[in-house]
């Protein structure tokens, strides 16, 4: 299993616009040629796919730069831990059938075997950086393709289990922090605009979850009939525009509501530094406000990277993995408060 610390490199808060764009992700969906897709694959088909992919990763040198984990070795808690770290999907950890997971050491690459498609892999990088993410994921794609062979048609492109992914099989997304737009109540307008140009907007943890801490995930909806570079261009342009709106909203807040914003930020910071009981939801919301404060230069005792990492480490399974013990409530909330306090005060 992975260690809780250090957290993934994508949380380093480096790269362009990292005060607003937390991370950039490019994900590809692929299926092996001549093997039925997951719903029609037999147990031995699935086992063979896991084995083949593991072998291909080893042969191409990826395995020595990361870990390959069998889902049968995963406990429920470890699955949850990986989910909190954005390395797997909820669907991946729920399955009882044979699945595999590859994670590169710095957690930039994650590759799920036998999720909805035989292969689902992504590159996740810090800040607003589609060129790097696409480069990493393309290299892996080409290495795998040269070894395993993909299901492909000249008409529909890369064939996927669900027609919503067919074609490029590519989902390009950014995780953005938009407290300025939420506070100025402009968020609805901006998000509606994004949906209008075929982008999908979700809360931090993907489909069906509410937005905690004003974090949003924006990605392309369509995968067919446009090239990879066109998709990247669309998402890049829209992100740039959203970042611009967020900057303007923050400028407005500082100009017109400086005291109110400072009050909100300092109160959140004070709570984090003195609370004795802290739930993960409360911690996320307070940390998100502190993150805004750091970006605006209101707080300078901590940096963006520290706050971003805490946003993952306060989550239940990451917290317990880091402390190295299983904790029940209410003790877990007490230990979380202690951990956050110590991380922010020193």
């Amino acid at each position, binding site marked *: 299993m992975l260690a809780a610390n250090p957290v993934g490199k994508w949380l380093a808060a480096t790269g362009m616009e990292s005060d607003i764009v937390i991370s950039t992700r490019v994900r590809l969906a692929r299926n092996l040629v001549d093997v039925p897709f997951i719903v029609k694959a037999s147990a031995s088909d699935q086992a063979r796919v896991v084995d083949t992919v593991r072998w291909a990763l080893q042969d191409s040198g990826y395995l020595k730069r990361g870990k390959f984990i069998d889902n049968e070795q995963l406990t429920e808690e470890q699955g949850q831990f990986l989910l909190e770290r954005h390395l797997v999907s909820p669907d991946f950890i729920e399955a009882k059938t044979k699945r595999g997971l590859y994670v590169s050491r710095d957690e930039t690459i994650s590759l799920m075997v036998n999720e909805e498609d035989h292969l689902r892999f992504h590159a996740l990088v810090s800040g607003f950086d589609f060129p790097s993410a696409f480069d990493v994921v393309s290299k892996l794609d080409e290495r795998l393709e040269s*070894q395993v062979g993909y299901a492909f*048609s000249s008409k529909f492109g890369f064939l996927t289990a669900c027609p919503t992914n067919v074609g490029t099989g590519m989902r390009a997304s950014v995780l953005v922090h938009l407290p300025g737009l939420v506070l100025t109540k402009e968020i609805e307008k901006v998000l509606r605009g994004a949906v209008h140009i075929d982008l999908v907007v979700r809360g931090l943890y993907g489909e069906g979850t509410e937005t905690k801490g004003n974090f949003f995930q924006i990605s392309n909806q369509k995968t067919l009939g446009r090239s990879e570079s066109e998709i990247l261009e669309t998402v890049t342009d829209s992100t740039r525009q959203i970042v611009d709106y967020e900057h303007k909203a923050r400028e407005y807040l500082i100009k017109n509501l400086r005291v109110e914003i400072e009050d909100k930020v300092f109160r959140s910071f004070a709570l984090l530094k003195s609370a004795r009981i802290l739930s993960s939801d409360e911690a996320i919301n307070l940390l998100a406000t502190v993150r805004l404060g750091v970006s605006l230069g209101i707080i300078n005792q901590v940096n963006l990277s520290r706050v971003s990492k805490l946003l993952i480490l306060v989550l239940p399974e990451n917290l317990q993995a880091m402390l190295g013990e299983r904790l029940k409530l209410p003790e877990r909330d007490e230990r979380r408060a202690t951990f956050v306090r110590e991380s922010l005060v020193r």
Partner: protein
Amino acid sequence: MKKCDLCGKNEAVMKVRQVDKDGNVTELNICAECAHKRGFSEVEKINMSVAEVLAEMKKKVAEEDRYLVCPGCGMSFAEFKRLGRLGCAECYTSFGPRLESLIRRIQGAVQHIGKTTKVGRKKAQVRMNVQRLNEELKNAIQAEDYEKAAKLRDQLKQAGKHAGR
């Protein structure tokens, strides 16, 4: 109301289009009596409600969905609609225009223009094939099906040659 174009007496209840050999279309207004005489039995079906017509159409589509089956994996179009997932790569051709119109609705396009793959057999593919044949061979021997086992052994030899390259 228009009078029937055939008898000229009764009130017309339906329109009939006639197309002759040269493709000329003539439209006739016909009464129920004449329609019956000429064998246009649809006259009775006009009494169906809109809901009934829709239900009938739906039933027919559902039936078609059940019988549209991919030979590659055995998935029917009805099963795909229920699961939202296709069974294999071949489904994309097996389900033909039904799937294509769905893809057009979702994607707004039906032609891929991105990255393509290189053709040719891949190392892992050969390896996987050998694994599969070995598994089948083991099963055949266990089942004492020696004829099949011999065939599989030949196939394995062939596959092994490719792998050795």
